[in-house]
C-alpha cells in the first residue's frame, strides 16, 4: 500500500464535488477550472479532469457551450444543470457532515495519546 495511491484516491474522491462547486455561480471553461484546482493543490496533472468532466456531462449534471477564443481553439464553457445544482446541494450537506465527523474522530483520538 503506497502513500501516494492513498493520497491520490482521497483527492480524486472529492474532485467531482470540487468541480461542481467551482461552477456553482458562474460558467467556466476548462483552463479556468484547472487553474482554480491547481492553485488549491487539488490537482497535480491536468489529464485527470477530462474523463471526469465527460462523465459529469453524460450524467446530466453539466452542460456546455462553445465560445470563440482569440488565442487558440474554441473553448468549452461548462455550467451546472438543474440536476447538477441539486446534486451539489446534496454533496454540500454530505461534505459538512463528513467534515464534522472527521474533525470529531481526529480530535478525540489525539488526546488519548
Amino acid at each position, binding site marked *: *500500500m503506497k502513500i501516494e495511491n492513498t493520497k491520490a484516491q482521497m483527492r*480524486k474522491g472529492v474532485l467531482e464535488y470540487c468541480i461542481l462547486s467551482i461552477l456553482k455561480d458562474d460558467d467556466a471553461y476548462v483552463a479556468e477550472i484547472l487553474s482554480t484546482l491547481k492553485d488549491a493543490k487539488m490537482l497535480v496533472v491536468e*489529464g*485527470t479532469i477530462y474523463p471526469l468532466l465527460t462523465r459529469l456531462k453524460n450524467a446530466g449534471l453539466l452542460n456546455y457551450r462553445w465560445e470563440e477564443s482569440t488565442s487558440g*481553439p474554441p473553448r468549452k464553457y461548462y455550467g451546472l444543470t438543474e440536476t447538477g445544482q441539486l446534486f451539489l446541494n446534496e454533496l454540500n450537506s454530505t461534505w459538512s457532515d463528513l467534515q464534522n465527523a472527521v474533525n470529531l474522530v481526529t480530535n478525540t483520538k489525539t488526546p488519548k495519546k
Partner: protein
Amino acid sequence: MNKTVNINLAGIFFHIDEDAYLKLSRYLEAIKRSFTDSQGRSEIIADIEARIAELFAERIQNEKQVVGIKLVDEVITIMGQPEDYLVDDEIFEDEPKQHNHQKSHTTRRLFRDTDNSYIGGVSAGLGHYFGLDALWVRLIWVILFFSAGTGVLLYILLWALIPEAKTTAEKLTMTGDPVNISNIEKKIKDSIGSVSDNIKNVDLKKHGDKLKEGFDHVSDTVSDSVKSVDFQKQGNKLKSSSQSFFETIGTIIMFFLKVIAKFIGVFLIIVGISALIALIVAFFTVGVTDAIHFPPMNFLDAANAANIPMWLMSTLLFFAFAIPFFFVFYLGLKILVNNLKSIGNVAKFTLLGLWIMAIIGIVITGVKQATEHAYDAEIISKNELNIKANDTLKIKMTGFDRFNSFVYSDHNDFKITEDDDGRNLVSSDIKLIVYSTTDSVAKITIVKEASGSNYNSAKERAENINYDYTFSNNELQLEAYHASDVKNKFSEQEVRVILYLPEGVVLYSDVNTSKYVNHYYNSYNSLLTNSNDGQYLKINKNEVECLDCEVEVIEEEEKAFNEVETEIIESITNTKSTNENEPEVRVQINDENGVQIEVNDN
C-alpha cells in the same frame, strides 16, 4: 538540424519537430487506448487535444516557432502520464494493479503471433498460450509432419481458425500480460524501438562498408559488428521469404475455404428467406384473413375441437416455425457479410422468448384439444324387430352412395362432404354386433358415442350423430355411414348396432357387412364374425350353427395330405429293396421310428 512536421491540433496549425511529433502521437495513442467507447473516448480525446493546443499556443511567441521535444515534455508533465487519466470506477479499489494481473492471468487467449512467425504464427501463438518457447512447439510440428501427414492438416486448420493478434491489446492478451496503459505504451515503445534499431543497423552497415573500403586495417571490431548484422539480416531474409511463401499458400487455401463458406452462407440465406416468405404468405392468406380456403383446411377446422381461434393457432405456428428460419437466415448472412452488425442481444432474446412462448402456446393448445376428448358419452336407442324363432333375418348395408356427392378428402375413417344441408362429417365407423337372447322377439340397439371436454358436450355431440336403419320384410337395412354436422368437430363419433336375436332365428348377413364386422367381433363376443357373413346362420344359445357351410373341409384336406406322405415312404423303401445286395447305406423312413440310417459294410 531537425525535420519538422505540420500538424492540426484541434483546428490550430503547428510546426512540430519530427521526434517531438512521434512522442506526442505516442502519448495521445496511449491515452486513447486507456478509454473505452462507452466512456466517451472521442470526446475526451478531442478535449485533451484542444487543451494541448492551448498550452502550445500559450508557449509559442510567433507562428514560425517550432514545437520542440522540450515543449512536448513540458506539456506531458502538465497533462500527466496515461495512468493519471484512469479515474473513475477504480477509485476506491485498494490495489487495482494486482487485481488486473490476476484477472488477465485467467484470460490469456490463443492468437497467432505473426510478429514471430515462420509460416502462420501458429507455433509462436501456441507457445505463448502454453508458456513454452516456440522452438519446442515447432519441433513437435516437425515430428508431426514427418510421422503422420495429419499434422499438415491440423496446422492448416489451426491457421484458419485461430485469429491473428492484430491490435496491441490482443498481443498483450496473447502473452498473458495485463492490458493496461503502461503495458500498451511499453509495447508501442518496443515496436518503435525495434524499428529505430533496424534503422541504426542499416546505418551501421553503411558505415561498415565505407570503413571496409577505406580503412581495412583499423576496423576489426566494426567489421565484426557488421558481420553479425549481416548474419542477422540474412536470417531475417530467410524468415521473411519463408513467411511470404507460406502466406501465399495460406491465402490460396483461405480463398477456397472462404468460397465454400460463402456457398454455405448463400444456401442458408436462400433456405431461410424462402421459408420465411412462404410462412409470411401462408400466415396472412390462410391464417389471418382466410383469403384462400383449400380442402385440407376443413380437416384442421374439424379437428379443432377446442374451438381455438384460427388466427391464434396460425400465429403460434408462425412464430414457432419462422423464428428458427430467421436464425438460419441470419447465420447465412453472418457468414456472407464479415462485419455484419449484430441484431443485438435484446432482439435475440426477444425472439428466443417469443419462440418459447409460441411453443408453450402450441403445447397448451394441444393439451386443450386433447381434453376435448376427455369424456365419452353414449346415446342408446332400443327398438323391437318383428322377428321370432325360425324366421330369417337378412342384414344389408345400404346408402354407400349417399355421401359420394362431394367428398373433400379422407382423413382416417372420416370424410367431409358437402350437400345442400351444408358440410357433414361422415364416417363408416359402424360396428355390427350380434348376440343371442332368450326373448321371443328380436331387438335392435343403436349406440351413438362421442367425446367432449365434459359429459354434456359429449352427449350433445353423440345426439347429433345421424344414423338410421330401415326394417321391412324381415330385411334390416343399415346405413353404411353415420354423419354429423361439421361444427361438432372430430370427436371420435362411432355407432354400434347391436342385435339381440331369439334362439332359432336364421341370420343371413350380406357380404357387404363384413367390413363392419371386421376386427370388432372378438372384443364384443359377437356371434357374427367376419368369416361367416354371406351364410345362413342359425342362432343357438351363445353360438351359431352354419346351415349351408361345406362341413369338415379341413379334415378332408388333412386326410389327403397323409395319403401323399405314405406314398413317398413306400416309394423310398421300394427303391431300397431292389438294391439289397449292395453293401451300402440303408435309409428307412416311417412313422414309428422316424428316419433310420444303417450302414452295411458286409
